[in-house]
């Protein structure tokens, strides 16, 4: 150690400055690596204002890189490294470094001792104060330019985002001023704009008409409450209608008229009262009478005729001119009814002194079935009957494990028929109870 004392002394005086230069080098490296990434971020920020977190990333990365490079560079600063720096600066061509190594490794003799002595003598001549142990990294200028550019872009006066925002604010202000001008302007509508001004009047008429229709429209019924708990009065009405006009009654009416046709004596048959309830007969008479009056007035139409389920036949005298016709009817020889039914309309029987009822169609029974109320009743009956033969083989709770859950989107939404909603609701409530 004594031989290299002069070398160690010089190295010790220079070590601090070498560390400082290493830190500068680390800073330059960190800037070089970070700013290349930071500059685009700040340029983008000029156009679209980025979140503060994004803007703080480059400085944070700079600190991290500086620490990493600094630790790495400072860890290499030992006395051999410093001696190497001095050798390079003074031009000693590794004399001091080699001497320290020889001393450390215990080399001696011959040229080794000469090398150590030579290095020590040269070290005594070295003035550490005049040593420029570090030099600015070659990329310093580029990094400085990059730093300046980044600072200008990041915090400088250039801020396109603000300009864009200012433009938007100006546009909004101008639009508001225009609107205010319109409000403050004359209310008289120019002649050229009259058609447009009339347009709201038409719309008003339309709205009034729609409001009127809306008021006439029956109130909406709540399907849930309707299916679950039916109004008792409504149930009574249904029962009354079913009791008064039922399919059985209509079949009886038809059979009664068939019996009249089979009777050979028209007089005898004339005396037989029709198998029809007095109330129904009066109802039918009223319908037929009103239709006749409409036909006489020319108000009837073919559609009305088709819609008439039961009507009175023509006068018997008019039908007997050609005598009773043979055959089962049809287009060729039979008299096709006004309904156009070709499947064997019953032959009209001439009953003198009376206007016997002739049933041409069973549409009279379908009138009620076409109403919502009748559909509710029929669906109720169908569901109850269909459930009688159902045999339970398992619980609904065992279904879900086999069920592959689907997204909401692909599920097809179908409107549950009005009469089935209650049962669908009960079904899912039953699943929930399971």
């Amino acid at each position, binding site marked *: 150690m004594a031989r290299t004392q002069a070398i160690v002394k010089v190295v010790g005086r220079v070590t601090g400055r070498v560390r400082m230069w290493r830190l500068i080098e680390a800073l330059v490296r960190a800037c070089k690596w970070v700013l290349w990434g930071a500059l685009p971020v700040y340029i983008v920020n000029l156009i679209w204002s980025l979140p503060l977190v994004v803007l703080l990333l480059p400085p944070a990365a700079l600190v991290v890189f500086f620490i990493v490079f600094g630790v790495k560079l400072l860890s*290499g600063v030992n006395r*051999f490294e410093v001696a*190497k720096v001095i050798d390079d600066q003074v031009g000693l061509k*590794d004399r001091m*470094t*080699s001497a320290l190594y020889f001393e450390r490794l215990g080399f001696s003799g*011959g*040229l080794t001792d*000469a090398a150590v002595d030579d290095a020590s003598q040269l070290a005594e001549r070295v003035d550490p104060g005049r040593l420029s142990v570090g030099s600015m990294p070659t990329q310093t200028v580029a990094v400085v330019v990059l730093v300046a550019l980044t600072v200008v872009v990041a915090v400088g006066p250039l801020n396109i985002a603000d300009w864009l925002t200012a433009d938007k604010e100006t546009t909004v202000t101008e639009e508001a001023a225009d609107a205010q001008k319109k409000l403050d302007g004359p209310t008289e509508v120019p002649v050229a704009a009259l058609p447009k001004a009339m347009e709201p009047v038409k719309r008003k008429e339309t709205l009034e008409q729609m409001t009127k229709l809306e008021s006439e429209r029956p109130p909406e019924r709540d399907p849930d409450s309707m299916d679950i708990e039916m109004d008792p009065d409504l149930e009574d009405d249904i029962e009354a209608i079913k009791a008064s006009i039922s399919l059985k009654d209509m079949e009886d009416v038809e059979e009664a008229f068939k019996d009249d046709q089979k009777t050979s004596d028209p007089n005898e048959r004339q005396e037989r009262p029709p198998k029809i309830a007095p109330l129904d007969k009066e109802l039918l008479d009223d319908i037929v009478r009103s239709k006749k009056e409409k036909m006489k007035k020319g108000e009837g139409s073919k559609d009305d005729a088709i819609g008439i389920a039961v009507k009175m036949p023509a006068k018997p005298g008019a039908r007997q001119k050609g005598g009773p016709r043979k055959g089962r009817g049809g287009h060729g020889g039979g008299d096709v009814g006004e309904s156009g039914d070709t499947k064997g309309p019953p032959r009209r029987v001439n009953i003198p002194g009376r206007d016997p009822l002739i049933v041409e169609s069973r549409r009279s029974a379908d009138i009620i079935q076409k109403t919502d109320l009748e559909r509710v009743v029929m669906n109720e009956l169908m569901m109850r009957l269909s459930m009688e033969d159902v045999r339970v083989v398992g619980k609904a709770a065992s279904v879900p494990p086999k069920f592959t859950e689907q997204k909401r989107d692909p599920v097809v939404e179908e409107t549950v028929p009005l009469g089935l909603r209650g049962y669908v609701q009960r079904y899912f409530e039953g699943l929930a109870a399971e």
Partner: protein
Amino acid sequence: MSDTPQDMSTDQRVKDFRDTFMKMSDEISKVIVGYKDVINNVLTALMCRGNVLLEGVPGIGKTMLVRTLGEVLDLRFRRVQFTADLMPADIVGTQMIAQDDAGNRTFRFERGPVFTHCLLADEINRATPKTQSALLEAMEEHSVTVAGTRYVLEEPFFVLATQNPIEMEGTYPLPQAELDKFIFKLDVLFPGLEELDEIIVRTTYEEMPPVNVVASGEEILQLRKLVLEVPIAPHVEDYAARVVLATQPRSEFATELVKRYIRAGSSPRGLQGLILAGKVKALLDSRYCVSCDDVDEMAVPTLRHRIQRNLEAEAEEVSTDVIIADILEKIPQTVEAV
């Protein structure tokens, strides 16, 4: 150089080495105009116990350089002109039937021109590979083996070979194994205007000046021992090793140029030559240890013929000198703590 090395101090020995070296260089420069670097490198190779391959066009003084070197060192000098029909026996010698006075006939080994101190293998690439390989043992081990008998060559043994880079017809490029035996490959460039004027003055107005003997063979051997004593610090060894490794395209130290243009890098013999040449360089600089700069300075002549370029490099005319310079620029002279 009158005192023995044991009597001389280290400083004196180093000084004597440098003086002898410079005297030899100056004496050769009396005959050879210019080419100071070539002369110094040839002498460096002589101090390193190495052989030199000189490459240059004809007529620029390659043969004259070697001949003058032999005269300066007071060593035996032989020249062999390599041709296509040259046989190995023409170099190393052959067994001949000899009859003694008693009439008995025996085989007698007739020594070839390789048995000398300084052998000039002129236009070595004109001989067949078989003949070229006859020099391998002599160059590396300083011995030749004929008919099972090994003959040790007298030291200092030194081979200088020349080859013409232009006239390539009828030539046989030296195999890599033989190239590796040369410590240096020196490019002898065409002289400049000043050198040509000097050549005219020296050779056409007067006779060639006589050269003085500067050192004997024994003194050369002493100087070689001194070279081997020069210490080298670990960080310099490490640097030299990294430089040699960087010539290998698959090495971790390989540069981009090496990966792109090099097919095979230097052998460990290249590292040996690099260190030895660095030691000579340090002694010539009055230093007692090798520096990284010495390695840098001797890297090109030491490694340029040990690196094999690929076809892409040859097509793009990327020389090995450029690649080595790139390696020296990229490999840092770092210092590792021991």
